[in-house]
């Protein structure tokens, strides 16, 4: 089975920079790391590929400083690692992002399966997976806890709000993984050492993907941030400081007042 796994570079906490005009993230200026939830997707992709003697192509869209994420994916066992990088991609919302990833799937494929993580910790939209499926006209299943290949179909267990569902899905398919479903493997030293000699990352631009200019970046993004604001909260406040024993007493009396302890 040939699998594409989408990996999102997200800014390391504390290094986040935002464009003051568009209020979109400036990924070039931030220190990037792999979205932690995508590691479950990558682990699932690698183990499914092992089981089926297939391949994993790891794909990220991002600036050149996202490369270490793909080197890591390579070290973990991905057969091919591709960075989709072009200034024209900047400012993309989920629709423009999923378009580029769908173009990559067409260009780098054919794939039987595309796996994304549940959600990214920066945008927290959880939209890109199903949107890739929509661009490709494929079915999609989100919040997958287990996946097993049996005769060209995938047997899945997915989580809904109140149920676990076992289902059978025909390929090709896009899935997003539930978190904490596996123990993601660390990078292999052996593979990592080879990257000292040879850079495994392939870079593709908008042109390489034959992406339509009006579909990518800011111009391909229907959603726009108008402005941002600080939510207002109540102004009445009790501020307590001093010796810790006294502070504990104060809280205990608050608890008593509200009838939360006797």
């Amino acid at each position, binding site marked *: 089975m040939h699998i594409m796994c989408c990996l999102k570079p997200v800014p390391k906490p504390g290094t*986040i920079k935002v464009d003051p005009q568009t*209020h*979109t993230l400036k990924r070039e200026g931030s220190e990037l790391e792999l979205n932690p939830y995508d590691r479950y997707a990558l682990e699932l992709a690698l183990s499914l590929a092992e089981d089926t003697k297939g391949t994993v192509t790891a794909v990220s869209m991002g600036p050149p400083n996202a490369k270490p994420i793909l080197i890591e994916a390579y070290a973990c066992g991905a057969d091919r690692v591709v960075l989709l990088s072009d200034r024209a991609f900047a400012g993309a919302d989920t629709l423009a992002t999923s378009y580029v990833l769908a173009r990559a799937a067409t260009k780098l494929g054919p794939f039987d399966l595309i796996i994304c993580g549940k959600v990214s910790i*920066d*945008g927290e939209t959880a939209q890109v997976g199903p949107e890739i499926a929509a661009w490709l006209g494929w079915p999609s299943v*989100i919040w997958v806890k287990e996946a097993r290949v049996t005769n060209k179909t995938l047997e899945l267990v997915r989580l809904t709000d109140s149920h676990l569902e076992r289902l059978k899905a025909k390929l090709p398919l896009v899935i997003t993984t539930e978190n*904490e479903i596996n123990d993601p493997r660390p990078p292999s030293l052996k593979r990592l050492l080879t990257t000292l000699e040879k850079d495994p990352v392939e870079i593709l631009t908008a042109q390489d993907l034959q992406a339509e200019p009006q579909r990518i970046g800011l111009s391909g993004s229907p959603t726009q941030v108008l402005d941002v*604001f600080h939510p207002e909260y*109540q102004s009445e406040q009790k501020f307590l400081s001093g010796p810790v024993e006294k502070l*504990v007493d104060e809280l205990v009396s608050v608890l008593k007042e509200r009838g939360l302890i006797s």
Partner: protein
Amino acid sequence: MSIFIFGEWTGTDLHDSTYELLYEGRRLADILHTPLTVLFIGPPEGKEKAEELIKYGADRVLLALDQRLGDFRDDVYSRIVTQLLSKEQPEVMLFAATAMGQALAPRVAGTLRLGLTAHCIGFEIRPEDKALVQIRPSFGEDVMARIISRTKPQMATVRPGIFPKAPKDDNRTGHVETLALEEDLFVSALEILERQEVPVKDISLKKAKVVVAGGRGLQNKELFSKLFELAQLLHGAVGATRPVCHLGWVSEEHMIGVSGATISPKLYIGFGLSGALHHMVGLKGAETIVAVNKDPEAPLMRRAHIAIQADVREFLPLLIERLKGLNKK
């Protein structure tokens, strides 16, 4: 001009969030002087409940009913929604950010090449052009963002638990239409084999009267786990920030905030928790917020009703000790 919301069937009943969408949908429809339509997809046994949504504020209920719609198959459902939206061209289409809503909305948005805003916690109507302004925590910044979409219908998913449920008015009237569903809508790559209720791990975060939550300021898993002791003493539940869940101090079921739970306890105590907006949006319903932190400038300290400046490493063990002492007496 019309506002559409998605009516979600859980298998036995309508999802609570559908009533929340009705509340906010009604409000927006009144501002825009436009009808509010519910699109219900489900098995025939959902018909009665769906029709009743008129009494909860809908002007029109569109029913896509078929026994085969008892299973949620992403491709079938999204095909029905997509076809209907293309035909009806509403101004606005809202889904709840439930498991189903999150599976469905982006498939629809992607297919129709529409903008989609996730997990909104509020809406406004821009006076000059009646555009739907969608509010959600911004990317990266600790602020709220107002977002608009250039495409129509303007689509968003709505965070469950934020809006109240629409009240029932037995005198309301409206139209109910049953949609004719062509056979090829049912072609699917998915087959549901088995459905099994998940025993809701009873951390009952959403229903707890007291929630004690911790952030990275608790320094380590051991100190964090003291919160469970405290929660037990207060008959409450333990909440956590996302970074803490990532550090493996506690499972993600305890997460409060954008990708976690929204809580409405009488009392919330945050320990060593800076109060990133992504966490704080989950506190919307908390009656009293107490913050314990060394840094008086931490956002949660500024927001709290009671801000206690203290080292959590000393404060927390001492508080537990004190409460245990009270229990003995």
